[in-house]
Structure formats: structure tokens, C-alpha cells
């Protein structure tokens, strides 16, 4: 159970290799040992991360197989997690791919892979997760979104639109779950230095996964619904969102 000060006792990470998710788990377990379940396509690659979390104070870490684009498996996957581990206090939806915009523009299969992972996959696994959370009457469901979901840019609109779909789904979901005991939080980081963005030129106000993790834990404690990282991006994105398209399309972003 989550306690009065927002500490959780069990965490399920969908996308267990996500550096932001692992940093978040680290932050959570270092204060109070919690049970962590990491779900990834190849759970065997999680050994080091699991050992790390155990050393940081996790009471137990398990790695399970989960394929975001194998939609047919999701119902069964979610059932098996709950059957095996019991109540989950925090579900962190952290999987996603950036894709290559240029390739996606030329190859529908590449574009579809981005959309099916970041949007369809999120929807597909979220539906059974929400059923479990509603049945247990409590829990937090956190989506790692992005500022790019706020307004699609010409330089990465495939990724941006896929994340925008998931972000919008979670906005509606959060409102629909008020009163059920389930809390939904959307996290919108800006540029984060991870292996996903390695080699890219960092955008202004870039942050590390630790900074995002810290914001997520704070958001859980205060029951936030949308968390911007860093906070100033909320104002920046508000400006960009309302910018006339004539101007927006000329921006080199």
C-alpha cells in the first residue's frame, strides 16, 4: 500500500530497461525497500539493473518477459503479474521507441513500429492494467510521455504523434478514474540524456534521468496529474503550442 507520505511498497515497470524508470525505482527503494517487478522483452538483460536495485535497498526484484507489440499477450501478461505478485502500488509505463524520422517518412513499416509501440502498445496493456488497479481499489499509474507530445514538430512528428496519442489517452483515463482510488500521472520530460538520445544534440533545458526520477517521486507524493521536467518547460510548451503555425513551422526544432 502507498502510505500517507506517498511511499509505495510495490512497483511494476513496463519497459524495464528504461533508464528513467530504473532511476525512479532507485529513488523509491533507497528510502524504503520496495518490491520491484521489471518487465522487458528480454528480461535476461536486466540482471545488472536488478542487482543494482537490490543493492540500493529493494526488498525483492523480479524480471519478467513483456513484449509491447505482442498485443494478444497483454491480458495474460497482466493477469500473471497480479497472480504472482499481488497488489501493485505503482505501475510505470516506460517503454517506447524514438524511431528514425527520415526512415519512417519513407517506410510505412518503420513508422508503424513507432506508433504500435508508443501508442497501440500502451493502450493495449493499459486496459487490463487499469482493470486490475480498479479491482484492487488503489494504485498509481504513471505514463512516461514527452514534451514532444504537446505539439508535433516537422523534425519528429511520427514519434511526437505516437506519444501524443498515448498522452491524450492518459488524460482522459485519469479523469475517468477519479473516485476509484486509482491515480493517473503523466510525466512530460524535455530532452533527457539516455541511450535513446545518445549522439543527438541536446536541446535546451536538457536533464538527466535522475532529475526526471526525482520529479516523478515528488509527483507521486503530491498526487500530481501532470509533471513537466524541468518545470519551466510547461511555460515554454504553452508558448509553443499557441504559436501560429506559420511561425512554428519555420522554427529549427
Amino acid at each position, binding site marked *: *500500500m*502507498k*502510505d*500517507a*507520505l506517498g*511511499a509505495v*511498497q510495490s512497483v511494476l515497470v513496463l519497459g524495464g530497461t528504461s533508464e528513467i524508470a530504473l532511476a525512479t525505482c532507485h529513488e523509491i527503494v533507497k*528510502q*524504503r525497500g520496495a518490491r520491484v517487478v521489471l518487465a522487458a522483452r528480454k528480461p535476461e538483460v536486466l540482471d545488472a539493473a536488478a542487482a543494482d536495485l537490490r543493492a540500493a535497498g529493494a526488498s525483492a526484484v523480479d524480471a519478467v518477459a513483456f513484449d509491447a507489440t505482442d498485443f494478444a499477450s497483454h491480458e495474460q501478461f497482466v493477469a500473471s503479474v497480479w497472480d504472482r505478485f*499481488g*497488489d501493485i502500488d505503482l505501475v510505470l509505463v516506460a517503454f517506447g521507441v524514438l524511431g528514425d524520422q527520415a526512415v519512417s517518412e519513407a517506410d510505412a513499416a518503420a513508422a508503424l513500429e513507432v506508433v504500435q509501440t508508443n501508442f497501440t502498445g500502451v493502450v493495449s496493456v493499459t486496459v487490463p492494467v487499469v482493470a486490475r488497479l*480498479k*479491482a*484492487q*481499489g*488503489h494504485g498509481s499509474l504513471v505514463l512516461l510521455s514527452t514534451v514532444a507530445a504537446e505539439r508535433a514538430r516537422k523534425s519528429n512528428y511520427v514519434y511526437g504523434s505516437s506519444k501524443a496519442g498515448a498522452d491524450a489517452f492518459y488524460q482522459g483515463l485519469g479523469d475517468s478514474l*477519479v*473516485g*476509484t*482510488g486509482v491515480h493517473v500521472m503523466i510525466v512530460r520530460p524535455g530532452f533527457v540524456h539516455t541511450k535513446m538520445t545518445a549522439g543527438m544534440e541536446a536541446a535546451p533545458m536538457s536533464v538527466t534521468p535522475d532529475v526526471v526520477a526525482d520529479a516523478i517521486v515528488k509527483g507521486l507524493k*503530491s*498526487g500530481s496529474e501532470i509533471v513537466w521536467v524541468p518545470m519551466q518547460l510547461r511555460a515554454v510548451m504553452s508558448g509553443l503550442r499557441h504559436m501560429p503555425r506559420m511561425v512554428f513551422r519555420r522554427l529549427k526544432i
Partner: protein
Amino acid sequence: MPKNEGTKNEGTKNEGTRNEGTESELLSGWGRTAPTRATVTEPERLDDVVRVVTDAGPRGVIARGLGRSYGDAAQNAGGAVLRLTSMDRVLHLDVEKGVCTVEAGVSLDTLMRALIPLGWFPTVVPGTRYVTVGGGIASDIHGKFRLGSFCDYVDRMQLVTPARGVMTVGPDQEADAFWATAGGMGLTGVVTEATMRLSPVETALVTADTERARDVDDCMARMLDSDDRYRYSVAWIDCTATGAALGRSVLTRGNHTRLDELGAKQKLRAREFAPRALAALPPSLPPGLINPLSVRAFNEMWFRKAPREKRDEIQTLTQFFHPLDGVLGWNSIYGPRGFVQYQYVVPYGAEAVVRETLERLSAARCASFLAVLKRFEHASGGPLGFPIHGWTLALDVPVGSSGLDGLLDGLDDVVVEAGGRVYLTKDSRLRPELLRAMYPELDRWRETRAALDPNHALRSDMDRRLDLSGGTQ
């Protein structure tokens, strides 16, 4: 019988849907933290309780009264909650002997209104009248009375258990089940009736002495020195004071007023007891009303308004015991994020822990709006009961104060080290691994509990969070 006013004053966030006799509701404790959803049933009769306990699904059932426990003791995420306030009849009253049998959903408010004009008083009353008898038993509540807690004055109760059906338990029959239920947080069964021994009172008044103490040592010395002249004793501590004034306090102690202390005219209305709520706070107030500045101002005012010394002041029972009951829904003053109440007891000899607590609070600039120091000269008979001989300190702190989790975790360690414990009824954030050190008889309690409920039908969020029953996760 006056209808139970306390229900209006429930610690509930009410957003739910209704279908036949049950309602899906978001429930939280009085601290308004960590709300969860449960299916609430309001039983009318014993049969209803038996049915809900027997039919409890995999997420179990827990009883709830007026929602005055601060944390998650009376909520059950995804499961069933029996709101016993619908069973609120006084079944029998022996005016000669001062013994009454009531349904567990009767509030102390109802009981006091009925009993005081007849010259009887529920022996132990906590800091609010808006608690039920069932809740009083589940918490083995203590109040300002040093010499016993609630269950010491319970002769018998009717307990609905999953394994042994409807039981009658008392200190002289099924004593293990009785004492496991005393302070057992509702996890041994659902109490449906109780027979209580009352204390005689001549008036509805308290003769109180108030004095100021210059620091915490002075306060404790005064309490040790002269508490035995009073039935009730409590010290309010200004925890914003620092340095030489650390723990400056206002000590209030009193006895039930005797008739011969009153003039002829006062005597006529001596046992009149009909308190009214003076005000009600709206259910949602903005965050941040309780902040270091407002707390400092309040504490300064409270200390200065108290007389340096005042003897034999005649106060009403409400003034003395339940000043906050005048404001319905006062808990919303802490804003949407709610607050944590932290209460511990440490044995005599561990006075330094109280001083250290105040030092840590002031160093962390984490001022408690209300800090209350009391003494116990008895120990609860329940393995999970809170009182032991010693000093008990209670603090109210808004959620959102930075570093609050670390501060309280640190205090827990000091309390455990000193052989003390935190009060489960107030708890909403303890580390489960400290439970056994704080409650050394935990395993004995678990054994009794398991015999009454082997399949673990009785469950609460607190049980899940602290693993009270053992093996719940």
C-alpha cells in the same frame, strides 16, 4: 435518542455509485491521506454483519465507525467495509450499577448525551466524542485518563468472527479473543455489541487547574509531582519554542466537578449536557493554511492566552475534553493533501526522547500545530494495545512539509531504541519492519487472530501496509 450527529462529520471523500444497500466509496482516515475505494455496507442487524463477514470476497472486509482513526485502519481497498454507525442503539442501561450494553455503532456523543443527565460517564473518552464504541475497542483508546484504557471497562462484547461465528467474549470468557480484539484494529472480528462499566459523575462539568510550564523538563516534573491529585491530565506543548524555552507548555488537569462545588442555581442544571457544534469547515480548503508562520502565530497566541496559573476553574466537559468537536470537519484545515498524526509512548526513564523529539522538530523547522503530552500509569491488556507505563506525545503535521518522511523515520528509531511504540490508530506511514520491535507480543496476537480468521477474511489497508496479520502480501 438523539440521532448520531457524527455521521455528518465523517472522514470520507464521498465519490461513489450506489446499488442495492451497498455503495462504492472512496474512503480515507481522519488525516485524509491515501484514499482507497471499497464497497460499503451499512448493516441493520447482526444477521447482516454475519452475512457480509461470511461472504467476504478475496479482498476481505473490515468494520468502520465514524472514520476518526487517522490513517488507513478502517478502509479496505477493493474489498468490503461494514459501516457500523447504522447499528447505534442503546440496548440496556442499569442506572443503579452503571452498566450499559450498546450496539457497536453507538457514538460516545450519543452515549454521553444519554448517560450524563443520569449521572454516568463513559469511563474513558478520547479527544473527540465522534468515535463509536466499536472503534474505541479496536483502538483501545485512552484519552486524558491515565489509569486505564477503554477495554479495561468493557465486560463483554459480541464478536462476529469468520471461523467461530458469533462469539461472546470478555476478560473472563474467551479472554484471548477479547484481548486480541482490544486494540486489535478490527482484524479479529467485527464487534457488534459491548457491555461497558460506567463511572459515576455528579455534574456535567470539570474543575480544572491550568498552569504554564517554562520548558519541557518543568512540565514533566509538574506532571510527575502532582498528577495524582487529578483524574485527567494533559499538557499542550509549544513546539515552535526553542533554546531555553524548548517545550514550554500549558498544563491542564482536572476532576469531575462535585455538586457541593456549585452554587444553588448552578446545581439545578449541573448535569445538563447538550453540546452544539459552533461551526463547520468546508470539506475542501486550499493547501498551505497550516504553515510554519501560522503555526508559530497560533502557538504563541495559545501560550500567551493561557493563564500563568488558574485554580478550580469550572469548565464544561466539551471545553475540557473536546474543544475541537465545536468545529465540524476541522481536519480540512490541513488542505487537500491532509495531515499525519504521529503519536508514540516511551517508558518512564526515557524522558530524553521527548526532549529530543522537540529538538529535532525545531531543527527541521517542522512545527506541529498541536503537540500534546500525556502520561500512562497503566498498560493495555491487549497484545496490540498502545498504552504502556510512560510518556505519550502526539503531533499533527501537514503532509507536504519537506523532509517529513525522514524526520518521522528517524524518530521511530529513537522510540524503538527507548522501548517505545507508535500508536497504530494514528499511524499512516510506519516502516513495517519496526512493528515487532514496537509490539513484542505481535506473534501471540497473530496466533489468536489466525484461530479466529484462518482464511484472512478480515483485512484493511493498514493490515496490507504493515502486514499486521503476517503473510498478507
